[in-house]
């Protein structure tokens, strides 16, 4: 007892007689509620505009109901009867009846497109079959359909349809990993001329790491200058760093096109100086070099700003003390100054790397063919081929890869060691 209260039953109470424990709990609850109410708008905003759409999109990578929804009879048959050979009359009856319904609803081509992802030529097979189905008015369905379109007598087609009949599928992930199913339904590597995603994932990670490294190399001295110059100079320098940061991304990218193209400013300059001949102009754009140069420039502020904010907090006395104790400039830098900037380096490198991994417009404009990243393929499948399942699978793999790298970083360096500002 510390004498706050002298209630007869020995419980501590507040002035109005409620037990202190209850009063405290109520006060904390109210504070928590206030906090929740304050955070709620942001939470809802993030949930509605970020988490839910991304979740839905990612779900598309395993969820593809178009076949099951529009071909109910055939799907039920295929779920019940595993395909080992071209099936018999019952399956063909379900196929014909479903296709007739699908044609009425104008969905037969969607179904064909789903099958076409795994077997080329299926879209037109579904379409042309659906057009001529009026000729089949009763059994035997198999005989009549095969007479009309012999292409249905194909085991590969039926194994593809069997997989498509399941609402949940892993075939998009298989495609995203350069895998595919053979005619028997076994998982095999895609033919060599169609393997692309492994290479692009690898290239994306390598180029992003390279860009982060270059940014660090270029940004470190600038951040150091910013943090140590007298205010009137450092303000000007800060404006120089921020001005491009505030300029539209497209403007910066297109300016790089003017500078880098083979008839561009940089090449003209080199020809004028005489480093290269007029016919030996260097290809600086429409290749990996273009992507790396332009993206390094665009990412620089993301490296400089966290570095600067950390360097600003490093007391200048430490280096001076190290020097006065006999350390040379290099030792003082390596053993005293540099270790104190590591949190900024961690933040900057991670920030630049993660943003680069998902970058899309700059490589699309200056990357040519060899400077394309995985994000360009995701965009291709979102906008051109309309294969959203595959786009979602590629996106999920990219997201998973980045999270994995983040986890690794946390294990090796420690995320709490990172300072963003």
């Amino acid at each position, binding site marked *: 007892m510390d004498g706050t209260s002298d209630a007869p039953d020995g419980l501590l109470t507040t002035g109005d007689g409620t037990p202190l424990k209850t009063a405290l709990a109520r006060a904390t609850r109210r504070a928590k509620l206030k906090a929740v109410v304050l955070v709620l708008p942001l939470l809802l905003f993030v949930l509605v505009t970020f988490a839910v759409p991304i979740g839905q999109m990612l779900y598309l990578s395993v969820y593809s109901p178009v076949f099951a929804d529009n071909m109910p009879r055939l799907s039920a048959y295929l779920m019940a009867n595993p395909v080992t050979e071209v099936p018999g009359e019952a399956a063909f009856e379900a196929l014909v009846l479903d296709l007739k319904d699908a044609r009425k*609803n*104008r*969905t*037969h*081509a*969607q179904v*064909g*497109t789903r099958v*076409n*992802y795994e077997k*080329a*030529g299926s*879209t*037109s097979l579904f*379409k042309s079959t659906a057009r001529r189905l009026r000729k089949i008015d009763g059994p035997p369905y198999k005989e009549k359909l095969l007479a009309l379109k012999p292409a249905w007598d194909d085991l590969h087609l039926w194994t593809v349809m069997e997989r498509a009949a399941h609402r949940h599928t892993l075939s998009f992930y298989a495609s995203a990993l350069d895998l595919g199913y053979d005619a028997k339904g076994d998982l095999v590597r895609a033919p060599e*001329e*169609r*393997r*692309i995603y492994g*290479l*692009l994932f690898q*290239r994306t990670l390598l180029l992003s790491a390279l860009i982060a490294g270059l940014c660090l190399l270029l940004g470190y001295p600038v951040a150091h200058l910013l943090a140590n110059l007298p205010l009137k100079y450092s303000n000007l320098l800060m404006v120089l760093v921020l001005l491009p940061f505030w300029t539209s991304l*497209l*403007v910066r*990218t*297109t300016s790089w*096109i*003017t500078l880098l*193209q*083979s*008839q561009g400013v940089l090449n003209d300059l080199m020809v004028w100086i005489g480093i290269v001949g007029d016919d030996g102009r260097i290809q600086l754009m*429409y290749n990996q070099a273009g992507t790396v140069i332009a993206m390094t420039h665009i990412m620089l502020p993301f490296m400089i700003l966290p570095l600067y904010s950390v360097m600003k907090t490093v007391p200048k006395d430490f280096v001076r003390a190290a020097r006065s104790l006999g350390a040379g400039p290099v030792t003082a830098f390596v053993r005293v100054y540099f270790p104190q900037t590591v949190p900024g380096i961690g933040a900057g490198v991670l920030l630049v790397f993660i943003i680069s991994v998902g970058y899309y*417009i700059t490589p*699309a*404009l200056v990357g*040519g*063919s*060899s400077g*394309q990243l995985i994000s360009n*393929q995701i965009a*291709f499948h*979102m*906008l*051109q*081929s*309309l*294969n*959203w399942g595959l786009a979602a699978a590629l996106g999920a793999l990219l997201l998973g890869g980045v999270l994995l790298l983040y986890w690794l970083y946390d294990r090796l360096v420690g995320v709490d060691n990172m300072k963003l500002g």
Partner: protein
Amino acid sequence: MTTIKPIAAALCAGLVLAGTTAQAGEITVVSWGGAYTKSQVEAYQKPWMAKTGHKIKSVDAPNPAAPIKAQVKAGNVSIDVADVEYSDAVRYCDEGLLELIDPAVLPPAPDGTPATEDFIDGGLTDCAVANIVWSTVLAYDASKFKGAKPTSISDLFDVKKFPGKRGLRKGAKPNLEMALMADGVPAAEVYKMLGTPAGVKRAFAKLDSIKDHVVWWEAGAQPPQLLADGEVIMTTAYNGRIFNAAIGEDKPFEIVWDGQILDFDLFVIPRGAPNKDLALDFIKFATGTKPLADQAKYIAYGPARKSSGELVGLYQDGKTRMGPHMPTAEANMKNALVNNFEFWADRDSELNERFNAWIATN
């Protein structure tokens, strides 16, 4: 640089479009940008706006078909009319992403011929109304060639005879067809050949021979820019763009008609378009005999109606006769290929995937 900015802007058109909402009396029309959109604004949009008092919001995209699926699937359609390629019109229609358009509502020709007979064969489909016939051609900058000049599609692939960079459209279509024609396959057999694995292999082998010399373009405004900048010595391009640069802007560009690939551009209405009725009214007006003929005043694309042909006269400069510049002019059709939309509706994803893999590996 002025042409590259809209291209870049158009790359994120999907995002931009999602944010626009049409008001009453205003429709959103998406087209390909540059000189082409300008010709449509002059020939279709301004007269329609003057006639009806409604407004048109004109938006550019590297492929106007691209945003449609996203908008329809999301149930948030802001596009009322889009100008798309044949294979996309057919594919999207099949996938239920477009409104059906009954050809009976289209106005007849001035002499009373019904629209169904007035349009060039294939110009009307369940969901789309053609406006022009365009073509992908080989074009070059004549000032860059001292001696021999390119005369056939094979010259595009002949880096010994004509060393230097070439511009090609980034995509399987129409590069595979051009590769086969350059390899000696007659136009009539190109799609049969491409239907076989050996044919596809042959096309890619031919593309391989110039892979290191290619600058890839995506938007139609890029190739004339690449030629003008001296980035490439020859390029594939949409014929109208080259015409406008050559005649309209006095650039020394020439077109090689050999191996040209013809295609339609068609108007479609996305399913669930906010102003469906106005959109249909605009399409009815724009694909009428006179507006189609008028468009040829601004760009060298052939009108999709037969009755417009006679009305096609002079370019807007008042002295250039448009007839010989049309892809459908008899002299230009000697070795021409008509794009097979059925083939591409079927093989589009497969061949583009392979093309993407091919382009990404060096």
